[in-house]
């Protein structure tokens, strides 16, 4: 099974790109086999993506570098969650053009992850508790749901605009119905609020543990903590507003709420990147930095292009 170690970012990024191009061709001509082809390519890409993530995580467990603790790993993880969501949309709404909106976000995340590189990692300590995992995972999936909500929000606004202007529907592609987009956006808003809330709370617990061992402590007024808190409070307000004020659940308001959540998220990520929460400082073995493969395997890291071992 050594061939699995040959799977690189290019494999799944190219699959998603080809699938996006095929989705685009739906605008121009009819091809009955295209949807099967797209699904096949996406599944192939998803398989490569999953294997890549598993192998990188295995190396993390082996203490060869914390993949999911790097920005690259985090971006690839978010892209992976988006692909899972996209496959679900393909199953529920097979004839719609959701791929034209979701796949560019996936490709952007992969490109961002590759651009930031494996060296740019989150601060970490030797203390590894379950809270670290909960913190990382909930923020990862929460971010992906905010991005997906943004995609649905954009689709909703475009669809409303078309319908209000009485523009004829596209010949070979269609948007999901407004009702579906609205309900999905509402659900995503709720899920992202819960996940980012869990992420924030578990982050506080991690910081308290770090305080105890006296390592890697963030001050409570750190911009990362403050901006995360603001993002969570915004999502909480948006969800409560959406749940208890009935007109807010109708039409464009839900779309505006998810779009605003995305803008908050982008601002939050900007603050995290700009505040030194991500670092390129070299770490001791076992800490989160570059992905390094075991030298005995003699395998070239698909991310760094360097041979593993140090």
């Amino acid at each position, binding site marked *: 099974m050594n061939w699995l170690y040959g799977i690189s970012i290019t494999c799944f990024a190219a699959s998603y790109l080809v699938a996006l191009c095929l989705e685009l061709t739906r605008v121009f001509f*009819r091809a*009955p086999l295209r949807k099967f082809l797209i699904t096949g390519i996406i599944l192939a890409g998803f398989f490569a993506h999953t294997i890549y993530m598993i192998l990188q995580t295995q190396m993390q467990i082996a203490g060869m570098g914390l993949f999911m603790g790097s920005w690259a790993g985090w971006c690839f993880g978010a892209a992976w969650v988006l692909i899972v969501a996209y496959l679900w949309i393909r199953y529920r709404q097979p004839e719609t053009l959701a791929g034209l909106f979701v796949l560019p976000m996936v490709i952007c995340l992969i490109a961002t992850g590759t651009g930031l590189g494996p060296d740019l990692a989150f601060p970490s300590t030797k203390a590894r508790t379950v809270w670290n995992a909960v913190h990382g995972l909930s923020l990862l999936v929460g971010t992906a749901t905010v991005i997906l909500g943004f995609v649905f929000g954009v689709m909703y606004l475009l*669809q409303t605009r078309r*319908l*209000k202007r*009485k523009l*004829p*529907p596209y*010949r070979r592609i*269609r*948007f*999901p*119905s*407004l*009702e*579906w987009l609205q*309900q999905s956006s509402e659900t995503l808003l709720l899920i992202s609020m819960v996940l980012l809330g869990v992420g924030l709370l578990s982050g506080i617990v991690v910081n308290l543990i770090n305080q105890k061992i006296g390592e890697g402590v963030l001050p409570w007024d750190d911009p990362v903590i403050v901006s995360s808190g603001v993002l969570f409070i915004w999502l909480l307000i948006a969800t409560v507003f959406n749940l208890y004020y*009935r*007109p807010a659940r*109708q*039409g*464009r*308001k839900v779309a505006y709420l998810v779009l605003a959540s995305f803008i908050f998220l982008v601002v939050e990520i900007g603050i995290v990147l700009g505040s030194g929460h991500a670092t390129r400082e070299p770490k001791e073995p076992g800490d989160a930095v570059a992905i390094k493969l075991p030298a005995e395997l003699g395998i070239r890291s698909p991310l760094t292009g360097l041979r593993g071992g140090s």
Partner: protein
Amino acid sequence: MILQIVGCSHHRSSVEIRERLAFSPKQTSTFLEAFQKSYPQSEVVLLSTCNRTEVYTAGHSSDLIPSTQEMSMFLAESCGIRHADIHDFLFEHADEQAIRHLFSVAASLDSMVIGEAQILSQVKQAYRQAADLNQSMPLTHHAFQAAIRVAKRVARETNIHANRVSIPSIAVGVFARQIFERLDNKRILVIGGGKMAAETLNYIQSGGGHDFVVVNRTQEAARRLAEKFHAEVATWDDLPKQLQLADVIISTTGASQPVVTTEMYRQIERGRQQRPLFVLDLAIPRDFEPAIGDCLNVYLYSIDDLQQECERNRDARASEWPKAQKILDQETARFMSDLAHRSKAPTIQRLKKQAQEIKEAEFERLMNRLGEIDPVHKKEIEASLHRIVNKLLHPPLESLKDESEAGSAGLLDALKRLFQLGD
């Protein structure tokens, strides 16, 4: 095989004539039974829809089936009308023309609304009903199975069925579906009791909608429509309240002034709590003031908005027409060639049988004269005679096959005469 069609369709006959020649399923059974009694050697299928009544007959030769004149007289008699009254409105097709017509009907290329999907199931149903009464229908079975295959091929290889072309089907199938994911939990308000409202409700009902309420100035018309769709009836004074509760509105009144003004809508807008509202204003002049379409979460479509989409779809279907016709040409030629080949099969079999008999007789005679011989040599001689027969028959059979593909029948007659095969 002889295949004939006599019938009327929307192309040459008015709805009055078509109504007089229409058959219910029960009447169809009676017609088929009576026809079988009169012409027991003939296979018969009766296709009766709102746009056509067609009688298909098939037999092995023309003397076994009624002439087209006899068929049209039988049809008139079955409907209790004078033959002279309908004669000018009937069409007749035979052989290749009849096959092409059947393929065209099944593929919905002869329909009033080209590409409508219902006709194929009606063709299947017509054949099934005939087959249920007469178990042995090899000729029509072959033709109708081919027609179903052609219809599927046209649907698969062209976009002729892809786009809706009637206003109610576009309103529900295209626009309502862009707003609502499901219709079974939506309240549908009908203002007026027109034919267009009934037709639109049919589409909504088939899409899952069932919560209907009808409002009309005259209660009698409202009740008639309500009965048909198990709908509630509300009074005209109740209209503002119904506007507030509705998710979909179909308006088809004959009023000369707007029935719902912007001011009236503004009064109930707050109570709607910004729920999306899909309004189909199918009335001329319009029942809803156009400014209502600017209100939050209101999607207002007039008949003109839908008409544009209808025309666009009609154009799209028209552009697929040559492709569909090409398929029809290919399939008709294929069927006729196959048919010609099948009709030659008995003659070919007789020729082969005759050759086989001659071979066997000669082999026996030779064995009697040679007496006891080595079994290996005996087998060699038999194989040699077999090869001679096959080699002699191969060229004429190949020529016969080529001729059947070309569609002529001269060689078959020549073969029969040359080898004295009889009929």
